[in-house]
């Protein structure tokens, strides 16, 4: 099925999210959409999918103009979408998710779950997925959830498939598998729209590339274009893609973790026997597929986990058994994995967010009351220093773009007197320009002699920042390797295997 978007315009109030965008995707073709955060990619796809109604322009499928009033129409017309944020219901099983909205029913509307299971199995087999139709979605690793999304789209016989940033949460291996799946789908004659920030992936599968900036199409590119070309097209200026860093100036052992074991309230052990050391002025990157205990590790360091055994010492001080406040007071800075969940209070102003973990004593507190002047002063400085794009310091953090939200968190954490920085996925969902900035800040922190622990599922990031790399798999350390270890080796280690030739 051939898809044509003609002059699509979509406004949110006075913001023009899509400005006369046109696009053509032929069957058997992968069309990449590139663009910074907030460029309007998802909006365009949501228009195509019937979630939004375009203010102007038309959608044409096989020469027929479509009028979608909702996703139901779009699906019926053969459009399937794998959403940037998965549209799965966590407490439903795979089969229930797949059948939702398209249910086969028996007597009096009773669900025919068997039919749904069969459908899941059938599609799984066709594309070599391994998905248990009866598994609860919330218990599945992200990669598998992604497949469920794909199954969902395919189970409705979609001919046009949209993948909106599907690789953001995948491991290299999973990404490779997804690329393979896309190729299969392409061979099966589907028209595919693929949205990503990752230039390597673009060049791997794209047949055509369209770059969007600020709601407009700013150019088309060939898959052969260089990273630098693509990046500057996206951002509108030249971008440095590598972080320049000097050799680390290593100090003493600062953070020493020994035999760490973490379990949750239900008794599930998520981390076992974790031991590592970070020296002052060193970046240790924790690499691994998402959900192999990284979250628990950072939370245990912060005192956010309740059931922790083993020992964590920072400059000789024991942190296990301390409250979060005591850990913070010991000089630990924390950039949480999910900034909206753990990092920011959306309804607070930027200024208030900048004092979030300093609500107990100076500089912003004096005898139980807030020192508003000091805070405002501080916030104004940081807004400039960290290039947070916001009207003023009173703007609610929730209203900022992801990248700017992240900069607020980074600004807050780095402006404290740190003895350890724990940064979990510091650049997740952040655009190229902001990534560059944040990476520089992390390295600068290291260079001030602070030990840094970075958790990342992006190998690019790991390689860019790490002095040493610790790979975790299923709650155990697979190995700790030098920062220049080849990607292939790391990818392999992330599957739990430890190549013989790696050095610890």
């Amino acid at each position, binding site marked *: 099925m051939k898809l044509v978007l003609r002059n699509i315009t979509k406004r*949110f*109030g*006075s*913001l023009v999210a899509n400005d006369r965008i046109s696009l053509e995707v032929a069957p058997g073709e992968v069309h990449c959409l590139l663009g910074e955060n*907030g460029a309007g990619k998802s909006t365009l796809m949501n228009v195509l999918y019937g979630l939004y109604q375009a203010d102007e322009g038309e959608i044409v499928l096989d020469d027929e103009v479509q009028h979608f009033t909702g996703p139901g129409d779009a699906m019926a017309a053969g459009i399937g979408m794998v959403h940037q944020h998965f549209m799965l219901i966590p407490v439903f099983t795979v089969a229930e998710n797949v059948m939702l909205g398209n249910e086969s029913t028996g007597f009096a509307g009773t669900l025919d779950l068997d039919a749904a299971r069969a459908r899941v199995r059938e599609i799984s087999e066709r594309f070599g997925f391994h998905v248990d139709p009866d598994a609860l979605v919330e218990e599945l690793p992200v990669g598998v959830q992604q497949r469920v999304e794909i199954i969902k789209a395919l189970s409705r016989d979609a001919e046009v498939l949209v993948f909106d940033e599907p690789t953001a949460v995948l491991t290299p291996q999973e990404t490779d598998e997804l690329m393979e799946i896309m190729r299969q789908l392409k061979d099966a004659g589907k028209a595919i729209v693929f949205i990503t920030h990752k230039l390597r992936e673009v060049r791997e599968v794209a047949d055509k590339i369209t770059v969007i900036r600020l709601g407009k199409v700013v150019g088309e590119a060939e898959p052969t274009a260089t990273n630098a070309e693509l990046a500057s097209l996206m951002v509108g200026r030249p971008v440095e893609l590598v972080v320049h860093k000097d050799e680390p100036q290593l100090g003493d052992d600062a953070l020493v973790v020994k035999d760490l074991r973490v379990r949750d309230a239900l008794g599930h052990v998520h981390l076992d026997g974790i031991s590592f050391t970070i020296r002052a002025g060193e970046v240790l990157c924790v690499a691994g597929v998402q959900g192999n205990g990284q979250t628990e590790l950072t939370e245990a360091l*912060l005192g*956010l986990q309740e059931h922790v055994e083993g020992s964590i010492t920072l400059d000789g001080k024991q942190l296990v058994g301390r*409250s*979060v*406040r005591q*850990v*913070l*007071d010991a000089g630990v800075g*924390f950039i*949480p994995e*999910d900034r*909206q*969940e*753990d*990092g*920011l*209070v*959306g*309804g*607070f*102003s930027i*200024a*208030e967010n900048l*004092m*979030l*973990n300093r*609500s*107990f004593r100076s500089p912003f*507190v004096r005898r*139980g*009351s*807030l020192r*508003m002047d000091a805070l405002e002063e501080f916030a104004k400085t940081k807004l400039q220093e960290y290039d947070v794009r*916001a*009207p*003023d310091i*009173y*703007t*609610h*953090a*929730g*209203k*900022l*773009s*992801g990248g*700017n*939200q992240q900069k607020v968190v980074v600004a807050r954490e780095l402006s404290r007197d740190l003895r350890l920085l724990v940064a979990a996925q510091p650049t997740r969902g952040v655009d190229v320009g902001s990534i560059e900035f944040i990476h520089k800040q992390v390295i600068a922190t290291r260079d001030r002699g602070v030990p840094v622990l970075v958790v990342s599922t992006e190998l690019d990031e790991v390689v860019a920042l790490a002095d040493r790399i610790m790979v975790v798999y299923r709650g155990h350390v697979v190995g700790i390797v030098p920062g220049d270890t080849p990607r292939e080796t790391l990818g392999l280690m992330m599957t739990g295997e430890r190549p013989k030739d790696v050095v610890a």
Partner: protein
Amino acid sequence: MSGTDETPQTEAEKLGGAGPTDTRPTGTRTSAPEPEPEAPSRTHSMLREIASGNALAGVLAVVLAIAVGSLMIALTDERVRDTASYVFARPGDFFTATWDAVWGAYTALFRGAVYNDRVDDFATQIRPLTDTLKFAGPLIAAGLGVGLAFRAGLFNIGGRGQMLLAGAAAGWVAFAFDLPMVIHLPLAILAGSLAGALWAGIAGVLKARTGAHEVIVTIMLNYVGFYLVFFMLSRQGLLQAPGSGNPKSSPAKESAILPDILGERFNLHLGFVLALVAVAYVWWLLNRATLGYRIRAVGENPSAARAAGIDVGRTYIVVMLIAGALVGLAGTNQVLGTVTSGVTVDLDAGIGFDAITVALLGRSRPLGILAAGLLFGAFKAGGFAMQASEGIPVDIVLVVQSLIVLFIAAPPLVRAIFRLPAKEAK
């Protein structure tokens, strides 16, 4: 109000307060960043509110609620119904009757709440206004208690129980001791607030320690508190007045009674001033104090608060203690100021529940609660006159009050009803 209070929010967000079942972090609701083109400064945004028609919508909400109330008055008025039977024969009668019924009701309400033009001396003329303030006092104090809990994401439906316990404690101190006023009165107030705080604190502790939902616990504590106070009032040696068989305590001693602030001729007592002090305190707490900052952080996003070293459970307990003390102040106000003839199980007078509406209408902001409390106080004071002179049950006031809250919360609806243009998108 502080800078953070003033940044523009969506209509629904303004009304503060998290759902009772809202135990999830609220962080996700901020996901789609919405660019904010203009720089909101403090006075600026207020001006814009008025200009953008929000204030107009507020006024229209009140008009609408009063219109519905009028309709009910007219529909159930006998003369209106009689004249309606021959409305085509002589429509004048019908309209006069309707007008009389509605006009009579609202003027009576006004006379009872603000200014009585039927008497001659000035003091008696403005007496209704002082009554309004008297009724507003406990509504404001209890509204603050509910509103503060809202700000921490807790729904305190336990106003009734907290008021009862507070009233019982304050009443006990007030009749059981003989002390000079400078000691006696503060002591009684303190005892009341403390009892309210402890009673609410139970819900806070259970929430923090076991995760028990505060909505359930506070509802249940209302009943438990009621029967507990009832029991104590029925026992000689506990609270029951010596020699009496009724569930009622001895009256408060003179030295523990909140003095009238405008002299004997008015009923307005110090309780209203205490409520104003409470408003100032809560304003300071929420906008200037670190504790209030933490409370708001916990209310807005508990998981971020936790990651920032704030002990969420402890904050819940502290909030419930303060909220209970504030609600307790309302109970104290009742037994030491409004009905000093002794503690009874009826002392909460529905204020515990009215406080929820007051807090909602006041958007959980101290000054908003003050305004809402005054409005509801006026309704209460006026309701008596309306019943006595027009025979209209005071229940109509409940209807009008709740409609005001509803309509104010939904300006688009009001605009649609009055066919105003939709608010221009920013």
